[in-house]
């Protein structure tokens, strides 16, 4: 069995998040070094402020300022900070109930070591130098043994409130396509297209996915197909895709390779786009070092009869 392939897969996007009024006020407040909570119908103050009461589900909008000082309600020592976390040096994760609040906020506490941290300890906010209106405008908490700060009377009205944030997220994966697809990809590197035949229905799957999807059985018998095939159907692409360096218009076609029982998808070249037709006989054109054929071009054979490929549309 050939070596199973693996490669990095990075899933990364800067998500654009609109905030709504309560979250807008809270994050705008952080930018201005003001911490806001929200008051529930029964008089509790929730910090961070949420839009809907977790107990009654009522919409809550009554913003009140709370103090930047508070008390640790639980903690955990993180000796190996991970990517994206608030501090690079070892720190404590903490839930902090700010003075004037009834609920606790999750953040980091900068402390010399776990022995310096305990539940019930007093802390205060250390503001980030540059603040943009994000939870990270709180750089972290720090130990504090002074008196509780007096909250101001901010009502959450700001001159230039934020309406949205950009929340970049990146996750790193190692992708492995599994046994069947690895074998297929290995064969492609020798410019061969190798599918797998279902032991029950005998259909040949290209690319093979390890299972016959209609029988639910593992496939193993390898079958080389093509290289020639028939265009079963197609469309003419007139808009340029961002990630592709292909001049439009071009033809995107479904091609049933000879010996395969379903069509794969590829671009057609070597013929004016408006002369491509269903039934056109084509063959792959490889370029040096490419994993897949660059495109398929006409073989010059007569077109296939509709009846021969209509089941493969």
């Amino acid at each position, binding site marked *: 069995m050939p070596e199973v392939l693996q*490669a990095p897969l990075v899933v990364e*996007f800067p*998500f654009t998040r609109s905030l709504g009024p309560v979250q807008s006020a809270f994050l705008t407040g952080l930018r201005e070094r003001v911490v806001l909570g929200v008051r529930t119908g029964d008089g509790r103050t929730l910090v961070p402020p949420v839009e*809907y009461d977790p107990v*009654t589900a009522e919409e809550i909008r009554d913003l009140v300022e709370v103090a930047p000082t508070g008390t640790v309600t639980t903690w955990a020592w993180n000796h190996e900070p991970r990517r994206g976390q608030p501090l690079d040096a070892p720190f404590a994760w903490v839930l902090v109930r700010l003075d004037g609040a009834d609920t606790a906020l999750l953040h980091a506490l900068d402390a010399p070591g776990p022995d310096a941290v305990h539940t019930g300890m007093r802390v205060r906010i250390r503001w980030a130098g540059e603040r943009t209106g994000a939870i990270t405008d709180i750089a972290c908490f720090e130990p504090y043994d002074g008196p509780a700060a007096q909250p101001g009377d901010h009502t959450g009205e700001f001159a230039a409130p934020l309406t949205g944030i950009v929340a970049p997220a990146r996750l790193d994966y190692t992708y492995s396509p599994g046994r069947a697809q690895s074998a297929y990809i290995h064969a492609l590197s020798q410019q061969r297209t190798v599918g797998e035949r279902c032991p029950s229905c005998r259909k040949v799957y290209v690319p093979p996915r390890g299972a016959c999807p209609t029988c639910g059985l593992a496939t193993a018998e390898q079958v080389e197909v093509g290289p020639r095939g028939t265009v079963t*159907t197609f469309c003419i*692409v*007139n808009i340029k895709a961002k990630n592709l360096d292909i001049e439009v218009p071009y033809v995107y076609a479904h091609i049933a390779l000879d010996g395969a029982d379903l069509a794969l998808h590829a671009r057609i070249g070597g013929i004016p786009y408006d002369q491509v037709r*269903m039934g056109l006989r084509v063959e792959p054109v490889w370029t040096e070092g490419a994993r897949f054929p660059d495109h398929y071009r006409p073989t010059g054979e007569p077109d296939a009869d509709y009846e021969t490929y209509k089941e493969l*549309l």
Partner: protein
Amino acid sequence: MSKEPVAVTGIGQTKHVAARRDVSIAGLVREAARSALDDAELTWADIDAVVIGKAPDFFEGVMMPELYLADALGAVGKPMLRVHTAGSVGGSTALVAAGLVAARVHGTVLTLAFEKQSESNAMWGLSLPIPFQQPLLAGAGGFFAPHVRAYMRRSGAPDTIGSLVAYKDRRNALKNPCAHLHEHDITLEKVQASPMLWDPIRYSETCPSSDGACAMVLTDRAGAARAPRPPAWMLGGAMRSEPTLFAGKDFVSPQAGKDCAADVYRQAGIADPRRDIDAVEMYVPFSWYEPMWLENLGFAEEGEGWKLTESGVTELDGDLPVNMSGGVLSTNPIGASGMIRFAEAALQVRGQAGEHQVDGARKVLGHAYGGGSQFFSMWLVGSMPPDA
């Protein structure tokens, strides 16, 4: 043992738009949920369980967002289920919720589906850079356009049919205050003059990208009896799936779609859908899918669906109106699109569809599909309960 009849007593939708920059994700779903509760004249306390659906989590970049949305949907202390069946999810979600009532597990269930496409970019979510795979060569329309061509080849439909559907749906959308696209100056000529993106699909024959949510209150017989407005009754509902890609797959008229419709008709006692069903809200993301689904759902013989469209049967004032709301072609918050079909069907039989109401609509089909035309969910709702 008999199933409990399921009634729709509350329906809510957001005004669907390209980007709801004024609300959070929670704020968006809340609007639809609140409006469904208001329609049913119920409070959060009246809801026994919440069933929520949406398309892939990567679209908003929140994994299993129902965990975060529990508070906004009044689900704290209640059961909350999250459904994901690709594009059909809005319909499947409603069916899972209906199942809870039908099984007498719960009396009254809130069901909701949403997508906030403006948080990212659907094409990004659909084409993550998976190693070793050929990059997607043609975008979403490029996936569907070859199947449309196959349909045209099979049926001999004239190439104007797609534009007729788009023109109709966009005009219908003008009568639906929730619809995303309101193209007041739409003309058939404009549709036909719009750029050919993925020949044979024109720009005006494609769906928009929307932020939106749709919610329904489903309840049992006792709940329906207390409802302030006429309920819609579920007469049949089914889901069917077939593999994504397989030898012999018919992309033009998938077997799973035919089987799903047949199951719904059997439950609802529909002998001839063309005669017995008054209107259809079907999932048509590209205009040509209207004639294709008309055939798949049994409203026309194979190869004949386009004739219904061409002769005006599917117009709002036609004999079998299709997509009175303007359809997916006018509004597409992906995860919610299927539920909007289901909800719009229910609005019709309740007589609550406003300007896009079909007079005397008593039995209306809601249809959703997804994946590579592989997942189907449908329900038939009526103005009278199933045993009446």
